[in-house]
């Protein structure tokens, strides 16, 4: 049972990492950051996605 639980924990951690790595969890992380700062003005998921892309692709982010 404990081995299974460990396996599930590792799989869950890997899944979380994958979501962060590819940007899938970016909006959730933004919401958490806003929560920590208790900021009232927050972007919607769509606004956040578009702004994030514009910023990311305005500087070198892929190498040769």
């Amino acid at each position, binding site marked *: 049972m404990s081995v299974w639980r460990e396996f599930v924990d590792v799989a869950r951690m890997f899944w979380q990492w994958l979501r*962060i790595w590819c*940007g*899938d969890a970016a909006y959730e992380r933004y*919401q958490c950051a806003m929560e920590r700062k208790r900021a009232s003005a927050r972007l919607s998921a769509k606004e956040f996605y578009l702004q994030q892309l514009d910023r990311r692709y305005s*500087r*070198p982010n892929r190498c*040769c």
Partner: protein
Amino acid sequence: MRKIVSAFVWIVIAVIGAGALAAIALQRNERISATWFVVAAACFYLVAYRFYSAFLAAKLVALDDSRATPAERNDDGRDFVPTNKWVLFGHHFAAIAGPGPLVGPTLAAQFGYLPGTLWLIAGAAFAGCVQDFVILFCSIRRNGKSLGEMARDEVGKRGGFIAQLAVLAILIILLGVVALVVVNALKTSPWATFTLAMTIPIALLMGVYLRYLRPGRVLEASLIGLALVMFVVVAGQWVADSASWARLFTLSGVALSFWIIAYGFAASALPVWLLLAPRDYLSAFIKAGAIFSLAAGILIVRPEIQMPALTKFIDGSGPVFAGKIFPFCFITIACGAISGFHSLISSGTTPKMIQREGHARMIGYGAMLLESFVGVMAMVAACAMQPGVYFAINSPARVVGAAPDAAAATITGWGYPLEPQTMIRMAQMVHEQTLFNRPGGAPSLAVGMAQIFSSTIGGERLMSIWYHFAIMFEALFILTVLDAGTRVGRFMVQEMGGRVWKPFGQTGWMPSVVISSAFVVGAWGYFLYQGVIDPFGGINSLWPLFGIANQLLAAVALVVATTILLKMGRLKWIWVTLVPMVWLITVTMTASWQKIFSGNAQIGFLSGANNWAEQIAAGKIPAAKVVEIQRTIFNLRLDAMVTAALATMILVLVVEAILRWTAILTKRSPAVLHETPYVATQWVAGAEGD
């Protein structure tokens, strides 16, 4: 007791690594297994990471985990996001790993497997990783500032301007060259062209999904995209087998270059969510999958290396590109050992996401070691095929002859036996019209990868699918570099133009977007076009130009790093960045000099141009070809001017830096560091966010 065990383990790793390196270096008459390459590289990397990077972290820069990083101080959930070190490692690696470490070692294999492999391993440990790590550290201490900003602050205003100009120049040359690699991989191949063309509507579909249907759900959209890409890789065979469809997707080099130029313009000017970002997501997953599959394939198949340790072309007479081992092996390998472009990533997104200064060691130094390992795998894939086949694919028709019999006879005459039938059979196996004269590195790497993959799964039956998967993988992420690079170039041109006329600097103003995009696309498009019409296939002259530009940018980064270390009072350890910097300047200046002034028409741009001019004057060129050759002469002279301009820029920066160092050392000028003030971390060790 633990210390003794640890010391024993590291001695064993070092001895195994040294043994494997000796086996690679000293083997002459028998074929050697690729396992030796993997073992030698892995052991060397482990030792370098454990000891050299630990020394850099402790003594050279003194990483301080008690200091709050930019991600902690400015945490805004957008740019500054504290990120788990393993995730950030993957993020950083995905950003730095491009086509360079695959194509460079494949081309450098013409010298034999030994010079390239040794430089990939040692160059990464003592130069490339050092550059990435130190620049990452410097940027963390400066709130995530870019290389250009750090050069301006620490070296001088002129240094900052030169760094910015150098980045734009390398970007343009890089984009032209990688586009040429794609053109050479796709020309006259309906299967490959169809597959790559279909990734555009797939990306558009993903873009609409991510924008309107499920905003930001990258994993879902990528899974849909991946399934569709796999389908079009297989469907490409049906297109190639249908006479009418095959005709539609069989394009010449010139036609392909115009399509790619039009694509680059569209990707730069269109909203980023529509085409560029979804392609990038798709490319990142396929890149990670293909690289890990190649590593697994090499470990499972353990192919024998067929290329000799050294070939006769170490004398500079190589058909893939001309020039001796020094300096051209180092210029050609480029990114797999050290890449100036990495310094832009290390001073861009990564420093804004790092949780602890201590993580910089794994992310900065470790990710570059992994990239070097990708380069070693590319070298293995290239050297595992018959040398005759390798030279047949990578040599331009003007060198070996256009007809299969003539090409095979020439290559056999060099001492690398090749039957025309071997190439015809191989072309049939991968479902291509021909594999002769396909320079650029991508087709030969795809053949090598397909041989390894098909030995693991599917055998010869799946060889054509694997080959076209490999071509799609290379072309897809090269195009991602192309569209992302064009967009960044556009922003740089807008920023520079904005200094002259303010409205031009508004990134959303349509006339400015169109003009700056057209400028950047026109600039790299010109290099692409000149490569496509080059009688020697373009790679021969353009890849060294790219290598010189890339390595010069690395020299810029090391100049900045050395200046900062000097200001930090690390004179005792200054050799850590100074030695690779001097080496790079020596290599690039020698290569620049030879590319401009060498009397050998195969190497020197000017003597190449004069040689053609003399042939026209002597009436040796048919009248119908004169205009084409005159264009080649102009292009060779332009290449000479570009090389001279790059070298001059770096010399100016180096002189400026030396003056600054002298002033600091003689105490004529105070050593003012532009670090952000110390702020203690609020995080308990090991309990940070993600």
